[in-house]
């Protein structure tokens, strides 16, 4: 029992409760257990002693050894401390070096990266400086390219440096500067072409001229004459080469790059349109003053459009076909109207011709450059009319000169030479004349060849205008014929009419009529001449014959007037003694003078057409009859003696003899006498004292005195009565005289009655 408990306690580290309970509750009480515990302690002491005894020696040895270790340890410690100090010493420099190294490495790295950055920046900077220099050198287009590169490639690549920002900020400014500068260049260019375009136009016109005149013969001739010239033609070949377009193209490129191409194109077009307007206003004001101003005007216009046309063909979109045609059509109308107003003032045909030549050349040049020519051809036609007018005006002057200096006498030639000279200038039938001896006389005056030659000159001048208009020979000839007839029928006839305005000597008038006939007959020769020089078919159908009719009528009328005037002058010389007692038995001197003068004149009218001569003699005779009759019935003459009556009767008989003698051929028989019929009847009635027949026949047609009115009969009878009363106032009347007086009174009364019936 007790032993077990101790064992239990020894065996169990805790949960000693049940062991202690058994101690307490167990047989022998706790003393037994304390005894047993003491025993156990003694046992354990014995065992410890034994154990100590056994390990003592070892212990001592160990201590000894330990002591030894101690000294070793101390040695080791010193040594280690030493080493430690040594290490400490050596690592210290190492550490500083390392640190240095680290710093150097860091610098090195920094440098590398800086260089890298710098390398990125460098192109930017060089580009930027390039840009600057380009701008300075005004090489704007490359400058812009550089700018572009700078902006889009180089700047983004380089970091956000301050200077980059500066450059960035600079870019728009530069761009604007370039744009401005290029605009300035454009303006220079525009100014430049404005001064150059007349030269361009001039050159184009010269080339067109050359081209038009180009024929194999000409080319060969030119080659022969200037064999060198064709080789060493170093100057511009084309007119547009006179102008350096590069500034314009540069500007366009620049604006294209700037993205302002459209604006630029618009600007350019607007500018040019404005320039066009300036070009279209003639700089020298009056183009009709000289050909030079006309030339420069056309040159400028042509040059302007040649340049535009060149721009159209070289593309670039600066000029569009529509725009060009639009501008052109605006301009060509203006050109046409300018030319129209200016040419309409010209009175110099030579100038007209030069201008026409210029315009034709201009039109041809336009065709070469593909520009529409309307309405210029129409203008040329209008000018043709004006030219004709101008020519006609000039020829009116020439005709006037010819007429002013005309002798209006037939050409007389003394020898063959002179004869040939006339025949050479004027085509006429010389067959009859060839046989005549010299001096020969042409029927016409020098007016005829002179006018004929002038009409030919006119035709030459006129055809000069239509040359080069591309008209066919037939059309030219027709127009020339028309103009020539117009010249004769209008201008020449007009001059003739003017001539008629002053009184002309009779013979002059006669010659004019003869001359116009010859001129009219010569029209067919003129037509032949026209067809020869125009190389067209001869047109023989002509409506001639009436061309100078008006002039002839005028001349004939003047001849009649002239004769009537002469008759009047003679009759103004009349000095009848109305109370003549005894007629001399001879006709009055003014009557015989007049009749001999008239027959002389009428003989010299031989060359006149019959119609005209008949008209002239009729007019003269009628005038004589009327004047004589008026003389007799003149209320101013109160008394007429029978002596005076017989004198007048004698004079009338002279005239009647003249009339009956048919002074010119072509008269109806007795026709001229009819003019004297009423006067004759009156005289017969009074001198024959045939009152009974008269009063009986009155009102009967075809009666012997049918042309005597009661009034005239009464008037004359009164005068007779007055005269008789005067002569017999103091004498006593005889019986038959009284009867006669009575009869006279009765007849007068009857006549008065008849007058009253009629009145």
């Amino acid at each position, binding site marked *: 029992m007790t032993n077990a408990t101790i064992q239990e306690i020894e065996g169990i580290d805790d949960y000693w409760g049940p062991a202690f309970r058994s101690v307490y509750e167990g047989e022998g009480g706790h003393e037994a257990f304390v005894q047993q515990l003491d025993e156990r302690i003694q046992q354990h002491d014995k065992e410890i002693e034994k154990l100590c005894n056994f390990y003592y020696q070892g212990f001592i040895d160990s201590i000894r050894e330990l002591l030894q270790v101690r000294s070793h340890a101390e040695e080791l410690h010193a040594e280690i401390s030493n080493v430690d100090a040594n290490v400490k010493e050596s690592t210290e420099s190492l550490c500083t070096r390392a640190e240095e190294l680290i710093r150097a490495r860091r610098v090195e790295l920094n440098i590398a990266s800086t260089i890298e950055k710098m390398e990125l920046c460098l192109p930017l900077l060089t580009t930027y400086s390039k840009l600057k220099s380009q701008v300075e050198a005004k090489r704007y287009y490359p400058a812009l390219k550089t700018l572009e590169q700078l902006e889009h490639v180089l700047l983004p690549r380089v970091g956000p440096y301050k200077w980059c920002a500066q450059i960035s900020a600079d870019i728009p400014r530069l761009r604007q500067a370039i744009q401005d500068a290029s605009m300035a260049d454009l303006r220079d260019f525009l100014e430049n072409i404005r001064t150059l375009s007349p030269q361009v136009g001039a050159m184009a016109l010269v080339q067109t001229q050359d081209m038009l005149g180009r024929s194999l013969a000409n080319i060969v001739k030119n080659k022969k004459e200037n064999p060198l010239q064709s080789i060493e033609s170093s100057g511009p070949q084309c007119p547009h080469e006179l102008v350096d377009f590069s500034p314009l193209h540069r500007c366009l490129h620049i604006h294209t790059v700037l993205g302002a191409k459209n604006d630029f194109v618009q600007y350019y077009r607007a500018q040019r349109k404005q320039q066009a307007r300036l070009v279209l206003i003639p700089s020298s004001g009056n183009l009709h003053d000289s050909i030079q101003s006309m030339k420069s005007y056309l040159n400028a216009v042509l040059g302007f459009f040649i340049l535009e046309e060149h721009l159209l063909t070289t593309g670039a979109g600066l000029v569009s076909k529509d725009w060009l045609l639009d501008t052109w059509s605006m301009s060509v109308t203006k050109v046409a109207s300018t030319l129209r107003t200016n040419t309409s003032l010209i009175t110099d045909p030579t100038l007209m011709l030069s201008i026409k030549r210029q315009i034709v050349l201009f039109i041809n040049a336009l065709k070469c450059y593909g520009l529409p020519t309307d309405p210029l051809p129409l203008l040329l036609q209008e000018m043709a009319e004006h030219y004709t007018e101008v020519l006609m005006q000039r020829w009116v002057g020439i005709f006037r000169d010819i007429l002013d200096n005309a*002798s209006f*006498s037939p050409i007389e030639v003394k020898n063959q030479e002179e004869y040939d000279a006339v025949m050479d200038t004027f085509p006429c039938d010389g067959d009859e004349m060839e046989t005549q001896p010299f001096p020969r006389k042409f029927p016409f005056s020098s007016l005829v060849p002179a006018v004929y030659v002038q009409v030919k000159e006119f035709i030459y001048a006129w055809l000069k205008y239509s040359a080069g208009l591309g008209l066919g020979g037939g059309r030219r000839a027709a127009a020339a014929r028309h103009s020539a007839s117009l010249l004769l029928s209008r201008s020449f006839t007009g001059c003739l009419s003017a001539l008629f305005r002053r009184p002309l*000597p009779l013979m002059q008038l006669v010659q004019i009529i003869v001359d116009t006939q010859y001129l009219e007959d010569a029209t067919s020769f003129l037509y032949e001449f026209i067809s020869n020089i125009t190389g067209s078919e001869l047109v023989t159908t002509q409506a001639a014959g009436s061309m100078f009719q008006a002039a002839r009528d005028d001349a004939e009328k003047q001849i009649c007037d002239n004769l009537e005037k002469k008759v009047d002058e003679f009759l103004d010389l009349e000095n009848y003694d109305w109370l003549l007692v005894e007629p001399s038995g001879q006709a009055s001197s003014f*009557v*015989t*003078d007049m009749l*001999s*003068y008239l027959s002389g004149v009428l003989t010299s009218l031989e060359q006149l057409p019959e119609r005209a001569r008949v008209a002239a003699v009729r007019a003269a005779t009628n005038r004589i009859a009327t004047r004589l009759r008026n003389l007799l019935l*003149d209320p*101013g003459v109160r008394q007429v003696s029978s002596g005076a009556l017989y004198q007048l009767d004698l004079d009338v008989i002279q005239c009647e003899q003249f009339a009956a003698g048919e002074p010119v051929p072509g008269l109806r028989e007795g026709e001229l006498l009819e003019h004297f019929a009423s006067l004759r009847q009156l005289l017969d009635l009074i001198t024959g004292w045939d009152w009974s027949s008269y009063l009986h026949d009155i009102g009967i047609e075809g009666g012997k005195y049918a042309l005597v009115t009661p009034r005239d009969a009464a008037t004359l009878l009164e005068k007779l009565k007055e005269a008789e009363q005067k002569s017999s106032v103091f004498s006593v009347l005889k019986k038959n005289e009284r009867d006669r007086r009575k009869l006279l009174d009765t007849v007068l009364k009857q006549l008065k009655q008849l007058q009253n019936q009629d009145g």
Partner: protein
Amino acid sequence: MAKTYDCLFKLLLIGDSGVGKTSILFRFSEDAFNISFISTIGIDFKIRTIDLDGKKVKLQIWDTAGQERFRTITTAYYRGSMGIMLVYDVTNEKSFENIKNWIRNIEENASADVEKMILGNKCDLDAKRQVSKERGEQLAVEYQIKFVETSAKDSLNVEYAFYTLARDIKAKMEKKQEASNPPGGRSGAHQLKANEQQRKPTSWLSRCSVL
């Protein structure tokens, strides 16, 4: 009816072609001048009434063609003329020399008592003058004919010439009248009648039919 004139004088212009007869007449009748030369064909006349000592004198002036070919026509008119102007051109020697021939013509064809006068025309053309005024006067003195230099162009002495000739005719006529009529109591009409009679013996109307 009141007469428009008191007497009628028939005058004649003769001389070479181109001396200016027509121009002188044109100046006298129309007071105008034409530079162009239109040679006269045959014969023509102009009438102008002038006032001579209160008398209305009608001048019927016959202008003849100077050209030889018209000679027969023109000489027929000599007979009825009461006064003849002989015209030469001072710039044309030949026309002056021919005056003698013209005078012979007058002697053969005109009535013996015809009044004459020599005119040296174109005296404005001093630079071209071929006949001096003295030679003209010399000739006139030889024939006892009045002489004056004229210019139709400048209207020099033209009026004077016609008035002088007309006055001389008038004086001659009055002298004759005085010889045949006792002086005193002549009315205008009466005088006219006298003129008529005066003219009749020399009248050329009898020749007219021959013309």
